[in-house]
């Protein structure tokens, strides 16, 4: 892994605990490092700092020095340097650590400040937690347990503001719940570069809104829902579907493009309810595109393959594998692997291709990127195919070469790992000339033509790794079980491999990884369980000469000397 240059460290004191932090760290982050939580609403580590919520007020002190001699002033009682505490509280978000800085988060003054802010935030809040989607992950709710009064001193009329405003196709606004922290406005301006949100009116009547006729509809709009600390912004997709405390969280990866956005999949009893971004400061910060959030819908989409088929008839897995092996053995085989398969699957695909003496192909998917978190390569794992040796050069725009080989009769069986060969450019007449073994999740033209069809799993139903555009290997985990009748891709591939006379390899990531580590040079020192949640950067130098398709994205600069820097926004 490549280490960042070591920044200058300075020592600060948080509630009596000393800690070394990099220069420029603010008080909230410094406190976080010693496990001290400084409550806040408006502060967000990836947005500009405005200091408007005032929840993070703390006491600040600096070591006393004699103004004339600059010598430390020693407290005779303790023998230590005296600390001059500021008489006024300070916002922790906008105050950076300086050498010797003292922070106190536990004093009566700090407690009073927090209680005061909490009370103010709640007087005009509807307190409608029982019908609010944010309940369970609401910062207001959370902090009110620590700093709320438990009763209200407010007997006046609450302000009335618009309810149920559709800001855009995916985001709903309840202005009465809004605490005016401006996170959503700052996100739209600073990250999404789509300046459509703003406050109108003033004082306590300030109201979040879109300009009349404009919509919050950019592909990052749902991030405003994620960062909204209260229930003001909610997702039209997730609204009223499920209480968050019932949901299980599983770490995953957005498979839309090669960016490899880190995600969390939220599920209950085998059903996925939503996908949200997971912080990775080297990949996606705390953001993700809206387009990646609905991918879970493929799980329950129509056309899901429900049973293995051999020549059109339903078969069990063993007979399907046997039938497939029969089509492979002794035949002139080609394997169409996938940039959507995991590293582990690609490793087994390579093994299978080698066993069958087959050439391996990969389907290229290049499209429009947005220079933020959607890259031009719509395959999440082309680099995995390179790393595992499934392919040695970048996939061609079409499968034309394979088509020619089929036409010339030098290929008679094609194994497709999840790829629709017709969509990938082969013609129906070409496909009619070969026997097809299709492994995949959904029915498509290729599965319809295949001799053997074996249902496999979506990314949400299995474990594995992808290698993103930075050559960062990142894990995803199984959130929900696959439908009955389908099998883990690794199980299918390893059965196929041994049925085709190949070696018997592990059929799950745990047992497979020792083989991967021993055979794949780039992964030689690694174990699956040791890959951190935020991934591990691999040495990309063996592939430095390849002309990858991607343009710059949030944390990715193309290696080429002259990057195509498309303006965004």
């Amino acid at each position, binding site marked *: 892994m490549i280490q960042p240059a070591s920044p200058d460290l300075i020592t600060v004191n948080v509630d009596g605990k000393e800690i070394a932090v990099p220069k420029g760290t603010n008080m909230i982050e410094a406190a976080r490092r010693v496990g001290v939580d400084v409550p806040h609403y408006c502060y967000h580590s990836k947005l500009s700092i405005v200091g408007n919520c005032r929840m993070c007020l703390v006491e600040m002190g600096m070591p006393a020095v004699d103004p004339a001699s600059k010598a430390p002033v020693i407290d005779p009682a303790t023998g230590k340097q005296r600390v001059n505490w500021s008489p006024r509280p300070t916002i922790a978000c906008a105050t950076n650590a300086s050498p010797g800085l003292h922070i106190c988060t536990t004093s009566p003054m700090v407690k009073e400040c927090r209680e005061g802010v909490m009370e103010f935030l709640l007087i005009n809040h509807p307190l409608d937690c029982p019908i609010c989607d944010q309940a369970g992950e609401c910062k207001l709710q959370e902090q009110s347990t620590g700093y709320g009064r438990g009763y209200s001193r407010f007997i006046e009329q609450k302000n009335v503001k618009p309810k149920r405003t559709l800001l855009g196709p995916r985001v709903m606004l309840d202005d009465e719940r809004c605490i005016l922290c401006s996170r959503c406005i700052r996100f739209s301006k600073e990250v999404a570069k789509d300046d459509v*949100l703003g406050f109108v*009116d003033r004082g306590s009547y300030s109201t979040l809104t879109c*300009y009349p006729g404009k919509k919050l509809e950019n592909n990052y709009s749902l991030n405003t829902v994620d960062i909204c600390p209260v229930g003001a912004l909610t997702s039209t997709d997730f609204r009223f579907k499920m209480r968050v405390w019932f949901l299980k969280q599983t770490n995953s990866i957005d498979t839309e493009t090669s960016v490899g956005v880190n995600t969390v999949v939220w599920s209950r009893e085998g059903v996925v309810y939503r996908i949200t971004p997971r912080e990775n400061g080297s990949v996606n910060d705390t953001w993700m595109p809206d387009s990646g959030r609905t991918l879970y819908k493929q799980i329950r989409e129509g056309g899901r393959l429900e049973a293995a088929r051999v020549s059109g008839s339903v078969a069990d897995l063993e007979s399907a594998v046997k039938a497939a092996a029969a089509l492979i053995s002794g035949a002139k085989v080609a394997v169409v692997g996938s940039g959507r398969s995991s590293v582990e699957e690609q490793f087994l695909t390579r093994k299978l291709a080698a066993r069958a003496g087959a050439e391996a192909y990969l389907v290229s998917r290049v499209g429009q990127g947005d220079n933020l978190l959607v890259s031009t390569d719509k395959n999440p794992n082309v680099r995995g195919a390179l790393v595992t040796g499934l392919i040695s050069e970048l996939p061609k725009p079409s499968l034309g070469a394979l088509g020619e080989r089929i036409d010339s009769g030098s290929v008679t069986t094609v194994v497709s790992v999840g790829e629709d060969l017709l969509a990938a450019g082969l013609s129906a007449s070409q496909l009619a000339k070969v026997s097809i073994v299709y492994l995949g999740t959904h029915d498509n033209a290729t599965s319809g033509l295949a001799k053997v069809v074996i249902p496999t799993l979506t990314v949400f139903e299995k474990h594995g790794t992808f290698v993103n555009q930075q050559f960062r290997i990142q894990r995803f985990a199984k959130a929900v079980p696959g439908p009955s009748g389908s099998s883990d891709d690794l199980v299918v591939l390893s059965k196929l491999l041994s049925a085709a006379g190949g070696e018997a390899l592990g059929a799950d990531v745990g047992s497979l990884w020792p083989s991967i580590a021993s055979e794949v040079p780039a992964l030689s020192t690694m174990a699956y369980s040791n890959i951190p949640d935020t991934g591990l950067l691999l040495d990309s130098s063996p592939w430095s000469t390849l002309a990858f398709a991607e343009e710059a994205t949030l944390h990715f600069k193309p290696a080429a000397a002259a990057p195509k820097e498309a303006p965004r926004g």
Partner: protein
Amino acid sequence: MNLQAETLRKIDEVIPHYPVKRSAALPLLHLVQEDQGFISNEAIEWIADRLEIQPINVYELVTFYPMFRQKPIGRRHIKVCRTLSCAIMGGYRTCAEFQKQFGTGLGEVSPDGEVTVEFVECLASCGTAPVVMIDDHLHEKVDAARARELSDKIKGEAKTANR
């Protein structure tokens, strides 16, 4: 947007006063309101376009500053100071008198379309309280009697104007 040539000339003149175009938002809002009587959505979009910012950036200002209005007002704008020094010297009576004279509520256009009476915050002429601004002109020591006089004057001018 159908702005007068003079307004357009002033707009062209004021923008270069600033190194950043957005700074001209307030001056442009004033000029456009003086020209049009109020700030329409069309005006907001026109100004945003002129200053190369988003309409929301202008909308945020129009709704923040009380002097900008999004609806037309009466022919004359009567602004009575509501703040302490004027209030203790009878500002509320003054305001009530104007409302009575024109049979109108606060912030509304009077039935005859002549005036809009409003309470505003401190006009910074507390030594001559209560004070009233009628359009751009400040009137000092406006007690109820003086409010009646001023109202009569406005009504008289209206008759002349309508003849």
